[in-house]
């Protein structure tokens, strides 16, 4: 059937199983928006307050649903506003297709109005990107973009479509979306080798990350851990992969990890690393990382082997399939002495943990946790509140934690919460943010209001950029340069101005009441939680240091 480029774009999105797109209209995507208007019974479009928020929403949608997120923006500033969102998705391996309009082909390269070489700009932060130069290749490029975004290690793909391509006509025929790339199991001998390393190990430690979420391998990790009696530590990206209450789960490792998880990671004689990339935030000083351990690394991206940490044995493939095979092959074992040691670490952790009382962030997170079920989506921004959430929230369901792990994007949370809420089919969503981070993209609250989304925005308001302040206190002689915000913003009034509801909580009782009210509200509700300016995130291993420099209290 003959169609215009703009029609082909919308039809291909629908064909690829896309039910919701996020974006913001503008001059060079007008034709696409016209087709979206006509197809609104088949595909939903959510307009953000800003392209960055729309990009984060598409990212949150993808993380919560497991589908490819789609964001549309116009040329020039629309396209450049996507950049942080695309980079964020790239660092956290989130499948995203970003579609941008551009000036007509004959105006490209002439510094035309709203022209930016977005392909050049996004080359280092996309898995792949395109500029479409003929309407005849438009559908196939979009299909390829979806395939690349979701295959292997997922990531963002950008397709830049000049205006005249949207207007030109070509033949379009609906196709079934391609399955994502399949991976064959590694050779039997590879798996045998890991199995024998496991059987020799007395102190195994399973270190799992975002790859477990992507590969849907939570049950397989649990089965392995139970069979070989190993503790599990998680990277921040892996937190929602494993039930926070599972007895083998020691929680997050790394810079602000759980003491027991960090210690077990350090003392282990075998690290079984699953779908992780040994980020510097997780390893600290690499030369002192897990000094007594052989490291086995299973990942879908072979470029991660030996990139940050030398590994003893690496196996490339889909972690879920490999774990199934591996767990079948190994004998059930027990490591009571190892667990005695781990339980000592846990006891130390518990003794030194902050008390969950009053307006201490731990108390706030635990109260939220008590009201959450396995479907509740939790989003965060970046900073102290993010680490407190990672430390104290007990995740129950896969794909329920939306956080900027790799890029560390302040301002990610509001958009992500919107996308996550929609991607989860409208589940209760809780955004834990800070007064600094929320300030970066708070205008995106309007999108939550317009769509009546049940998002509770918990602002941990310490009137400072808390994480930076923490570093300034520890390493910069308490010179609090530009971090003490002390803004006069009334967040509750602001929420109301946006059309949401809200309440301020200065005491535990006020917080309890606010949370009850928020849970009874169907739309967005903001709780302005006043917390202490000097509250710190502990433990902390300073950047580039090792466990010997851990600050516990």
């Amino acid at each position, binding site marked *: 059937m003959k169609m215009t480029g703009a029609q082909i774009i919308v039809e291909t999105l629908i064909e690829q199983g896309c039910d919701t797109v996020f974006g913001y209209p503008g001059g060079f995507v007008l034709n696409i928006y016209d087709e979206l208007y006509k197809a609104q019974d088949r595909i939903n479009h959510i307009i953000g307050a800003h392209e960055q928020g729309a990009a984060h929403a598409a990212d949150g949608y993808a993380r919560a649903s497991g589908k490819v997120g789609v964001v549309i923006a116009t040329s020039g500033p629309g396209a450049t506003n996507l950049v942080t969102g695309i980079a964020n998705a790239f660092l956290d391996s989130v499948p995203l297709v970003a579609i941008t309009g551009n000036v007509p082909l004959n105006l490209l390269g002439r510094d035309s109005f709203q022209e930016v070489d977005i392909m050049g700009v996004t080359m280092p932060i996309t898995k792949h990107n395109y500029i479409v130069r003929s309407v005849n290749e438009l559908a196939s490029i979009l299909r390829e973009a979806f395939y690349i975004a979701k295959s292997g290690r997922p990531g963002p793909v950008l397709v830049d479509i000049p205006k005249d391509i949207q207007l030109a006509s070509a033949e379009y025929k609906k196709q079934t979306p391609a399955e994502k790339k399949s991976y064959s199991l590694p050779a039997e001998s590879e798996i045998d080798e890991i199995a024998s390393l496991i059987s020799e190990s007395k102190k195994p430690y399973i270190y799992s990350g975002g790859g477990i979420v992507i590969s849907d391998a939570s049950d397989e990790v649990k089965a392995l851990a139970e069979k070989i009696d190993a503790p599990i530590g998680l990277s921040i990206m892996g937190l929602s992969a494993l039930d926070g209450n599972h007895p083998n789960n020691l929680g997050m490792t790394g810079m602000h990890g759980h003491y027991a998880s960090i210690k077990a990671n350090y003392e282990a004689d075998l690290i079984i690393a699953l779908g992780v990339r040994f980020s510097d935030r997780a390893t600290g000083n690499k030369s002192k990382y897990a000094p007594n351990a052989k490291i086995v690394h299973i990942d879908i*991206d072979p470029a991660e082997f030996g990139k940050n940490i030398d590994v003893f044995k690496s196996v490339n493939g889909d972690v879920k399939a490999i774990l199934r095979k591996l767990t079948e092959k190994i004998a059930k074992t027990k490591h009571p002495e190892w667990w005695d040691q781990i339980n000592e670490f846990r006891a130390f952790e518990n003794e030194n943990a902050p008390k969950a009382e009053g307006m201490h962030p731990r108390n706030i997170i635990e109260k939220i946790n008590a009201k959450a079920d396995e479907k509740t989506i939790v989003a965060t921004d970046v900073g102290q509140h993010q680490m407190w959430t990672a430390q104290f929230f007990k995740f129950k369901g896969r794909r329920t934690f939306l956080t900027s792990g790799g890029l560390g994007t302040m301002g990610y949370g509001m958009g992500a919460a919107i996308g996550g809420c929609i991607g989860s089919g409208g589940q209760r969503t809780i955004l834990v943010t800070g007064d600094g981070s929320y300030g970066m993209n708070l205008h995106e609250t309007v999108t939550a209001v317009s769509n009546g989304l049940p998002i509770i925005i918990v602002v941990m308001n310490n009137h400072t950029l808390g994480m930076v302040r923490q570093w300034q206190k520890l390493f910069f002689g308490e010179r609090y340069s530009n971090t003490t915000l002390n803004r006069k913003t009334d967040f509750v009034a602001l929420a109301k101005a946006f059309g949401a509801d809200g309440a301020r909580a200065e005491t535990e009782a006020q917080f309890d009441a606010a949370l009850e009210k928020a849970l009874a509200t169907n739309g967005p509700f903001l709780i302005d939680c006043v917390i202490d300016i000097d509250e710190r995130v502990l433990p902390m291993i300073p950047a580039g240091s090792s466990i010997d420099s851990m600050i516990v209290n």
Partner: protein
Amino acid sequence: MNNATDNNDREQFILSVLVSNHFGVLTRISGLFSRRGYNIDSLNVGETENPALSRMTIIVTGDDYIKSQIVKQLAKLQEVKKVELLPKAETVLREHLLIKISVDRQTRSEITEAVNVFRGKIVDFNTESLTIEINGEPSKLNAFIEFTKNYGIIEICRSGALAMKRGAYSL
């Protein structure tokens, strides 16, 4: 030992890369090198027997860590169809040099003699200068350039190395 953190000895190595003959592919590849902090000594790109593919020869200096990372990171790019490290001993390596040297009556004959020894060719000739082309291993070109430094080099243009593995093998 940790390659991911230690600095090992640096050496020069030869990469042969088959890439899609697409718009922007050169930027994508050179961008990868600069983004990850790898230095390119030379890069050459040209068409192949298959019009859909171009072949690049990239000479890089780095340690073992950089060597393995470059191959893996290149292989991740959608437009890279094949990437291979060519072993020096089994590889034909050739580069083309154009060099313009200022001459006078006396030095002209000395240089002409050297051109013959190096099996080069004089391709342009006037009273003030000679333009010479030479091909061969980069080390041979270096040796010739070194020699001509005594005479006054006006300008140099090098193609970057081309490389192909010996025998019936193809990339």
